[in-house]
């Protein structure tokens, strides 16, 4: 799955996903990616969040929506992501997944579970030398 957050110079925040889902799924199965609030959520007043991972589990917790609400309540991007991961691991300790969060002014962070570390890619206008940077976070 690719999940992406785009914020333009004026602070217009959008987010989206594209995926072919889980392998050997039962036909008709849809994961979290196209579900608003699960795969991605955006609010230009606050920022955006996107998710990837075990969609059958993650979509039950709407992590993208709640991470954005976390930003609205003053959490930083990394904290907002971690809180959503912890909500899921309480019920599914071994689930595999990651959440990336960005604020409307361009700060970003991520959190993950079920893997050693989780990489995400950033193209940042305030620090642009023509190359996309890869950040990695250790999982919760």
């Amino acid at each position, binding site marked *: 799955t690719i999940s992406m957050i785009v914020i333009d110079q004026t602070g217009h*925040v959008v987010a989206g996903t594209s995926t072919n889902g889980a392998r050997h799924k039962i036909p008709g199965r849809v994961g979290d990616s196209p579900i608003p609030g699960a795969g991605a959520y955006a609010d230009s007043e606050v920022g955006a969040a996107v998710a990837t991972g075990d969609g059958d*589990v993650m979509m039950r917790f709407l992590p993208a929506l709640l991470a954005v609400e976390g930003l609205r309540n003053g959490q930083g991007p990394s904290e907002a992501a971690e809180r959503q991961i912890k909500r899921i691991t309480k019920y599914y300790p071994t689930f595999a997944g990651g959440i990336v969060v960005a604020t409307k002014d361009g700060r970003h962070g991520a959190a993950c579970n079920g893997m050693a570390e989780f990489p995400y890619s950033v193209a940042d206008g305030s620090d642009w030398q023509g190359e996309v940077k890869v950040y990695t976070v250790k999982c919760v």
Partner: protein
Amino acid sequence: GGLPLVVTTWRFLNATLQAYQSLTVGEFDPIDALVEGCSVCEREQCDGTVGYGGSPDETGETTLDAMLMDGTTMDIGAVAALREVKHAAAVAKYVLRNTRHTMLAGSQATDFALQMGFRRETLQTDESRAMWEQWKANHCQPNFWRVSNAHCVCVLVGFSYLGAQTILSQIAQKDRSIIENVIPSPSMSCGPYEPVSANAVRSNPPEDASDPDRTDFSFGRYNHD
């Protein structure tokens, strides 16, 4: 960080760069830049988890999901289980811009895409077909059907697949609710499956839907969205 900004899950550098350049050099609006970025991965089949030719289902078919959300208008366009059309993110943009709906699904999402001018084409490739054939040859393992623990014990004590199967079906005849959720046993047989009679099936404990057996597939150890 600062603006403009593109952030993408995983190491999808080309997709991130395409979205960023569409936004800056191309002066695209953010939704168009987002679609440009996601479309790179749909073409490049990033990690085998995006686009055609990846993640075949139990019948060997690949279907696509995509979603776009505009954080200023709160408008959303999404497709789920899109069949036989490669450009899921672009189709989601037509749902966003040309309809007042939020999501279209399945074959009817395909009909909508054809109406919008997209082309119908198979999403299966030689690789996805081979992946599927190999999975069928391995008794359709792993899969997403529920298995009761009692049944696993039979396998663990050394019964051969067929041996366990025979014993289980004999036991199941007497009291199905002890053994199975569906039969034949999904942990050693392909379907089609039939549910053990509805009233005999006790409510399932909150199984860890992401226990290692479910997600420990060959690809990068995880099989996920």
